[in-house]
């Protein structure tokens, strides 16, 4: 059902294939790129000597030197602005914003500056920076450690937004982002760092090593930006999801007993509209699942696109399963977090023609 091979990598992988969790895979991507290209460097709060609070940049300073991987002041705005200057110089900086909830102080630099440099300079200056940021809930982080701000960036002309859902894609996509000549926002679903999470929070997390997606080449490979991956083929309904919600959607489809096709978008901008369109035209139904609040979430955009392109193929209204329009709560996390039960309910309602 789940295959790692249905979205071929654009470059062949090299090196041994070993089990990695997402943290190790991301670390490997940075390590390999830094070894290959002296213009790649990495910095962020606690990202140097200590290797990041989630250990994604672990040992990079020890391996590549103090000026290649270093700690930054607690100034998200300064971190991104410095990266923009470095990118304009010709480097390929990769910066870590410790939690996506802290990306807002850097928002002006990302939106007004990085996203617009190429356009406003007539192509003379570019911003080939990568902004990595752990995002999403399910870790008892409360309001300031759990948000999913991806839609804020998808609305901005000039930004690419990438969200992996497994170790294999995480390494290949991060490598692609570092090599990309445009600014990329790379959201890392921290609930998936250590293992896939199916949304049943009372069940223990299964480690990545039992998963096919944890078979990660130690050498370099690139997963193309802008290509979705069909995670589960099905005929009755298409589920569109990214990040943690890919695994929640798989569990929800199984729980509902519905023959759902689950698509991991992997890249929100640019969007793989062809894969989405082909799937919805085949199944005739569409359910969109995301963690972020429903109103003006990226699901709204997807819903509009599917409606514009597949209206005459639809047999039920498009459904959205999302976070609620509240700040992210602490004590009510599992009522807030879209779980398999809500996905299953939406699937069943969709199968019976809508609610």
């Amino acid at each position, binding site marked *: 059902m789940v295959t790692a091979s249905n979205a071929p990598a654009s470059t062949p992988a090299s090196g041994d294939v070993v089990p990695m969790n997402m943290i190790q895979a991301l670390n490997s991507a940075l390590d390999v790129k830094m070894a290959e290209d002296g213009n790649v*460097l990495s910095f962020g709060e606690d990202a140097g000597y200590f290797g990041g609070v989630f250990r994604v940049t672990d040992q990079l300073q020890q391996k590549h030197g103090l*000026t290649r991987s270093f700690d930054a*002041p607690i*100034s998200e*705005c*300064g971190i991104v*602005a*410095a*990266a*923009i*200057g*470095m990118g*304009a*110089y*010709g*480097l390929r*900086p990769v910066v870590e914003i410790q939690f996506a909830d802290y990306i807002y*102080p850097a928002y*002006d*630099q990302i939106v*007004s*500056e990085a996203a*617009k*440099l*190429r*356009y*406003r*300079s*007539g*192509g*003379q*200056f*570019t911003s080939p920076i990568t902004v990595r940021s752990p995002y999403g809930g399910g870790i008892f982080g409360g309001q300031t450690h759990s948000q999913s701000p991806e839609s804020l960036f998808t609305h901005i*002309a*000039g930004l*690419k937004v990438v969200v992996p859902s497994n170790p294999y894609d995480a390494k290949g996509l991060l490598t692609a982002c570092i090599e*990309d*000549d*445009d600014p990329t926002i790379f959201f890392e679903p921290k609930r998936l760092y250590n293992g896939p999470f199916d949304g049943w929070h009372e069940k223990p997390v299964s480690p990545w090593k039992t998963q096919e997606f944890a078979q990660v080449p130690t050498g370099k490979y690139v997963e193309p930006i*802008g290509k979705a991956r069909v995670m589960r083929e099905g005929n009755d309904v298409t589920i569109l999801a990214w990040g943690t919600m890919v695994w929640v959607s798989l569990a929800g489809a199984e729980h509902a007993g519905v023959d759902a096709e689950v698509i991991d978008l992997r890249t929100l*901008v*640019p*969007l793989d*509209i062809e894969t989405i369109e082909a799937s919805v035209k085949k199944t005739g139904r569409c359910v969109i699942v995301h963690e972020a609040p429903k109103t003006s979430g990226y699901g709204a955009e997807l819903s509009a696109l599917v409606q514009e392109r597949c209206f005459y193929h639809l047999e039920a209204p498009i459904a959205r399963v999302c976070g609620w329009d509240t700040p992210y709560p602490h004590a009510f996390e599992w009522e807030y977090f879209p779980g398999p039960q809500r996905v299953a309910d939406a699937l069943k309602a969709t199968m019976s023609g809508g609610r």
Partner: protein
Amino acid sequence: MKKPNTPQLSLRVPEPSGRPGDAPDFSHLRFDAAGAVDRPDVASTPYEMRDHAFQLVRVLDDDGKAVGPWNPNLDPETLRQGLKAMILTRAFDDRMHRAHRQGKTSFYMKCTGEEAIAVAQGMILRREDMGFPTYRQQGLLISRGYPLVEMMNQIYSNASDPIKGRQLPIMYSSKEYGFFTISGNLGTQVPQAVGWAMASAYKGDDKIAISWIGDGATAEGDFHNALTFAAVYRAPVILNVVNNQWAISSFMGIAGGLETTFASKAIGYGLPALRVDGNDFLAVWAATKWAEERARTNQGATVIELFTYRGAPHSTSDDPSRYRPGDEHEKWPLGDPVDRLKQHLIALGEWSEAQQEEAEKDAVEQVRAAGKESEAIGTLGQSRPSVKTMFEEVFATEDWRLVEQRREVGV
């Protein structure tokens, strides 16, 4: 609400020394005499030179003589070159301001009274260094010989606009001339300059960066982030604060300029600071040279406050007679930068009133010729790049949305 027998608090809102109808009053400002401030070694620690953040470096005295330890002893040819670039900058401003009044462009911003700053600094820095300017550093391009016609094409958003009709007039961009693309968001370019300088240091190159910010925008967080990063990573960068007294209609006291000097803000970050007469070409030159040497010898960043006065309106959309004394600019105690450099050259016996007149005529002629050439291509609304370019360079390659939307427009 208030407890009995406690003093009543009151809120202060700073006010400038004069409003429309008042006589200009600069008695609250302190000016050191020309030559009075010592010149520290470039290896001095910020602690050793704290006083420089409060003093005012001046070289030209009231008689047009260059005096004191900051005298850069420039050769007459360099001085003449600087004067001519300032004259040309002023002539360019005048014509473009008129072009706005004639409906040829939507917007313009003059740098009247501040010409010495960008011109001197543009002459000092190398072409491969990178300037991160604001909208009042047109003198940087002009002093480096960037074609006037290209500047005008940008202002007119015409078919030859080098940045393809995408930016507000005066927001130039030229990598080749060390002029980073201008942002309308104030202050954002300062930490970018620090990052650019960090990259040069990381690569082991010898290039440095230079940035400008206005007194008003020093209140933006970006300025303070930039100072932190510049100090922490010892970035080879010159961080200028152009204190021209006015942020549109808000006087410099609203940005904190009455509580301390803008230069002194560097002290808390462990950066050396110089406070300089921005209307004194020689003082600007000398201070910038000092900071340049510091940066190029790997000793890190310098903050320079350039003390000046914005003679013209903020932009063509502004009317300063509504918020400040009408003749305040004429009464500015530090005079006019063009006049002062002219007097200096005349005092040296290297220039004359007749040569000045000739240079002014020549500048007007250069601007007129460029204007004719640019206007032949077209002015705003009469000419523009292909609409197709609107969809280009959003990304390195167009994605399907842009392709579809471009087709919807029919291009």
